[in-house]
Structure formats: structure tokens, C-alpha cells
């Protein structure tokens, strides 16, 4: 349904005319200023099939939110192609591109920042369907009530403002807003991370009900391994802008191959391991401005070899549907 081919996203500082002139002068006098480019997402390819729930896991700052935003069409990729139902979104004519964009919707992490504080709930949820003329004028109110009810909100509250709701209810408003344009694909960017655990469960159940009722496909971005294991059919592990391992949920959680995945999983707090002392993965996540050479994980990897710092490992299939990018797999 969604396919990414070699997608990268680079963020660099933008220089205005004055900055360009001074940089030019500095370079002229033998002091070239280095341009700091962040490779937030580095040559990522992935596919998500219809009806699938794909979990995307990684540490903070590894580029998973950027990847999600590119999939949702909020940011264009710096290079690479994003295909929706086999067609490259970037080259579609405007109308078709708009339709494709509406079919992919995003649920945001922060339910406080993601709702416009100056609009009433009815406008937040109803604006896009009205603008895009998706609903015959006479049926608008019924349609709106139906969207709110489906997200678990009482339509009686539709004249209220976002600040009058709790975090969980706000997230439901965000979900109703996304559902109102009849999407087929939802990108959930840490959609439950800001909520209380009891509310998290409600929202996760809502996602699963919607999946069944509306035949939705999900890209579920999270750093919460428990949530991802519970929800996903397939899991992608991301480290510093690259996908290091991907496979079915059982394969990832049962037979993790990449040292990074193994390290992540070893540190999940579990009841049977509560006496254990947790050892964090050693070192900080490196700066994406100057990522380590070769395999990005080698400075923190317990199995690092000389080759790891020289050559970036390519992703290879180590079992049916289970891919991993690690030099250790070459020895077998």
C-alpha cells in the first residue's frame, strides 16, 4: 500500500543572502565554514501492505518521526520516492496528489499542540471534509456526529474548545479529525506516549477497533516496545536514520538478530527480571550531524569489528521476511 524507495531526509541550515555573502568571504580568505547537515533519515526503503500494522521502533532522535511525517505527506523527502498504491506521490497531478494525501492521515504525539486552540471541536473535525466537499451539505451534521461518536466522543461536546478536554479526549478529537477525511492509512507518531497508562489502553483499543471496522493500515511509531509488540504484525527497528532490522513481530522479539535490537530488548523492564540491574546501552546516541562511519552502531556495539567502522552493512534477508543489517551475518 505504501512503499518507500531509498528515502532520505536531510536538514541543513538555510542561509539568507547576508549569510551567503559572509560565508563566501570566509571561504575566499581560506576559512570555509562547514555546513552542518543532519541526515535525519538515510536511504530508507520499506513497504507496508494493506491491513498491516507495522511498528517503527527507535530511540529519541533516530528519525522515526521525520520518517512518519514524510509518509504522511507533511514533509517532502530530500531524495527517494514514496509510492502510494504503486504511484509516486511526488509526480501525481495536483488533484490525485491531494486524494492520495488525504488517504494517509497522521495522529500526533502531543494532544495539546496538535489541536488548533481557537477552533471549536466541530470545526477541527469538520473543516477538511467541508473544504474538500466530501459530504453533501444537508448531511453534514449527521456526518460530524458520526465521526465524533466513532472516536468515542459525545457529539454534544462539539461546540466546545480543545482546552475544555482532557488529554485522552483531545487525542480522540485528533483521531476523529483524521477519520473524517476517510483515510486508509494512519501514521501514529507516539500517539499514546503523552497519555496515562489507563488512557493509553483505551486509545490503543480504539485503534484496533477502527482497524477492524474500517480496514485501516497503520504505521505505528513508538519507543514503547511493549505497545509495539502487542499491536504490530511487523516491526522495524531504526537507528540514526537507518532501518537496522525488520521482520515479523515474533521474529524480532523472539529471535532478534541485530546487536542493537538485542540490546534494546534486553533492557525492557519485565516482572521476571525485576531484581536485575539494568545496564543501559553504553554511550549516548551519536549526533546525527556527524554520524559514526560505517555501521552507525559500531561505537556502542559489543561485537564491533574493524570492518564495522569502515563499511556500512547492507540489509540482507537472514530468514524469510526477516532482514537485518549487520556484518556479523556474513560469517555464517
Amino acid at each position: 500500500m505504501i512503499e518507500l524507495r531509498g528515502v532520505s531526509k536531510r536538514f541543513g541550515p538555510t542561509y539568507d543572502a547576508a549569510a551567503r555573502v559572509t560565508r563566501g568571504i570566509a571561504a575566499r580568505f581560506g576559512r570555509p565554514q562547514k555546513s552542518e547537515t543532519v541526515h535525519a533519515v538515510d536511504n530508507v526503503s520499506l513497504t507496508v501492505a494493506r491491513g498491516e500494522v507495522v511498528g517503527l521502533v527507535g530511540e529519541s532522535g533516530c528519525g522515526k518521526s521525520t520518517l512518519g511525517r514524510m509518509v504522511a505527506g507533511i514533509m517532502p523527502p530530500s531524495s527517494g520516492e514514496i509510492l502510494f498504491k504503486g504511484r509516486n506521490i511526488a509526480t501525481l497531478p495536483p488533484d490525485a496528489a491531494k486524494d492520495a494525501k488525504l488517504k494517509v492521515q497522521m495522529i500526533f504525539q502531543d494532544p495539546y499542540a496538535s489541536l488548533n486552540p481557537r477552533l471549536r471541536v466541530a470545526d477541527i473535525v469538520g473543516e477538511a471534509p467541508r473544504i474538500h466537499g466530501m459530504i453533501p451539505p444537508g448531511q453534514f451534521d449527521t456526518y460530524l456526529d458520526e465521526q465524533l461518536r466513532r472516536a468515542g466522543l459525545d457529539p454534544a461536546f462539539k461546540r466546545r474548545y480543545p482546552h475544555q478536554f482532557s488529554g485522552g479526549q483531545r487525542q480522540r478529537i485528533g483521531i476523529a479529525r483524521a477519520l473524517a477525511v476517510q483515510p486508509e492509512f494512519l501514521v501514529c507518531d507516539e500517539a499514546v506516549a503523552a497519555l496515562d497508562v489507563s488512557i493509553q489502553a483505551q486509545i490503543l483499543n480504539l485503534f484496533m477497533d477502527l482497524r477492524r471496522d474500517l480496514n485501516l493500515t497503520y504505521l505505528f511509531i513508538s519507543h514503547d516496545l511493549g505497545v509495539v509488540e502487542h499491536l504490530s504484525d511487523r516491526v522495524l527497528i531504526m537507528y540514526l536514520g537507518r532501518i537496522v532490522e525488520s521482520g515479523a513481530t515474533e521474529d524480532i522479539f523472539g529471535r532478534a538478530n541485530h546487536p542493537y535490537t538485542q540490546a534494546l530488548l534486553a533492557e525492557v523492564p519485565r516482572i521476571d527480571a525485576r531484581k536485575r540491574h539494568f545496564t543501559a546501552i553504553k554511550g549516548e546516541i551519536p549526533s546525527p550531524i556527524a554520524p559514526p562511519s560505517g555501521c552507525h552502531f559500531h561505537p556502542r556495539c559489543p561485537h564491533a569489528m574493524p570492518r564495522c567502522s569502515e563499511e556500512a552493512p547492507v540489509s540482507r534477508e537472514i530468514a524469510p521476511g526477516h532482514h537485518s543489517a549487520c556484518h556479523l551475518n556474513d560469517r555464517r
Partner: protein
Amino acid sequence: MSDIAEESPFRRFLSEFAASKIALGGLIVFTIIALAAIFANWIGPQNPYDLAQLDIMDGRLPPGSKSGAGYTYLLGTDDQGRDMFSGMLFGLRISLAVGVGSAIFAACVGTTLGLLAAFFGRRTDAIIMRVVDLQLSFPSILVALMILAVLGKSVMNVVLALVIVDWAGYARNVRGIAMVERKREYIEAAACLALPWRRIMFGHLLPNCLPPLIVIATQQVARAIALEATLSFLGLGVPITSPSLGLLIANGYQYMLSGKYWISFYPGIALLVTIVSINLVGDHLRDVLNPRLKR
């Protein structure tokens, strides 16, 4: 229940604004001044522009003198025999109209350009902001003087000059506010819903930039009134046939040291009270609307 449900940000703001006595006082004073200016024809005993009602023999009478027609010159008369009180009411009307009018026009132009700069960034941003820098690097009084020297004296030309002088301040401020708001997730959500950019800009971005913008606009009204008074005082503002407060002050300036203080003094007080009341309202608006200053 229903009043909770209907509690809009605007109502919250009203109740918070009313909590400050000084600001409320400022608002009341400003309202009285504005009403007096609007109903000048009915309040003032004389129409100072109707030459038939003027008596040159009544020139430079001190406050409280009786006129030939029977009424009292409450604040005295100027050298043409005009009743100062009536003259001030009509002058206030011109001053307020010019100040508020130019502030609104400048706000529209500046806000639109500032939003465009923040929304599109890159080249649009660079071009607009360099023009703003250029504009702001000239002293505003100098630019206004040049424009009026070229275009000539008229009320519309003064408004135009003030708009040209003031739009850049709005543009810079609005850009700053909008750059912060633009990064927020509700704007990304609007983009994800494939809303047209005009709608995102004016329907989502602008309403969230309004609170600081209202504060800036209030202060700019006061600034515009003061600048207009300065221009008129220097003789390049409004024409003599429609005198503003600044021109009234200029008229009496030469009599200041000969004991006939009232010709300049009372218009000056009116100008002062007007600007102070607007600034009081503006300052308190800033306290109410800026969440960072909240206790």
C-alpha cells in the same frame, strides 16, 4: 452546563481584562474621548470650520469668556476667534481617524506580508524581510516628511504616509510570532488534511497570532496619533482646513510665552490623555494576552 460549553477564549479574555482597574479606567477614558470626537458636532457649542460662526473680535480670549453669541468659551479662543473646546473636539476626530485608520491599514499590509514571509520562508522571507530592514533603518519621521513633501498636504496623504512608515513593524513582529506558531503540530495537521495554503495561513496561523498582534496594534495607534501630531506641528501634516490636535498646538505655540497658554495647552493635554489611555489599555492587553507574563 451550557455556559461552560460556550466559554470561548474571548470571554475568558474579557473577564481577565476587567480585573485591572487601571486598564478599565483607561478604556473608559478612551471611550469617552472617542465618543466626544464622534459627536463633536453636537457637543461643541460652535462649528470651528464655519467662518460665519467665527468672530475675529473674539480672538485669543481667555477661558471662561463670554462670546458675542451668548455661550461661554470654556477653554478660551484661538487667534481666529475659534472656540478652543469645539476646535479640540473636531481636532480629536481628525487625530483619532488618522491614527486608527492608518494603524488598521498598516496592520493589514504588515500582517499579510509577515505571514507570507513566515509561511513560505526562503526567498519570499528574504525579500520581504530585507525590505522591512530597509524601511526600519530610516527614521520614521524623516520618511513621513519626505512622503508628505512629495504628495502634498491632505488627510489621506497623512494616512498613507503613516501606513508606509508603520507596516514594517507589524511585518517583523507578525513574522516572529508566526514562525513560532508554524512549527506547532496543528499546522502540520492542517497540512496533512490537504487544506489550501490560504486557509492554513488565514484560518489557522493568523488567529493564533492575533493576541500579540492586538497589543502591537494598540500601541501603534498611540504611536500613529503622536506621529501625526508631530507632522502637523511641523506644518506638513493635515491641511489648515481640517486641523488635528497637533495643528492646534502649533497654532498656539507662538503665544505660549505671551501668557495666552490655553491655545496650545488644552490640545496638548487632550493629546496626552488620549495617548496615555490607549497605552494603558495596550499594556494591560499585553499582560492578559501573553501567557508568559501570567503569574
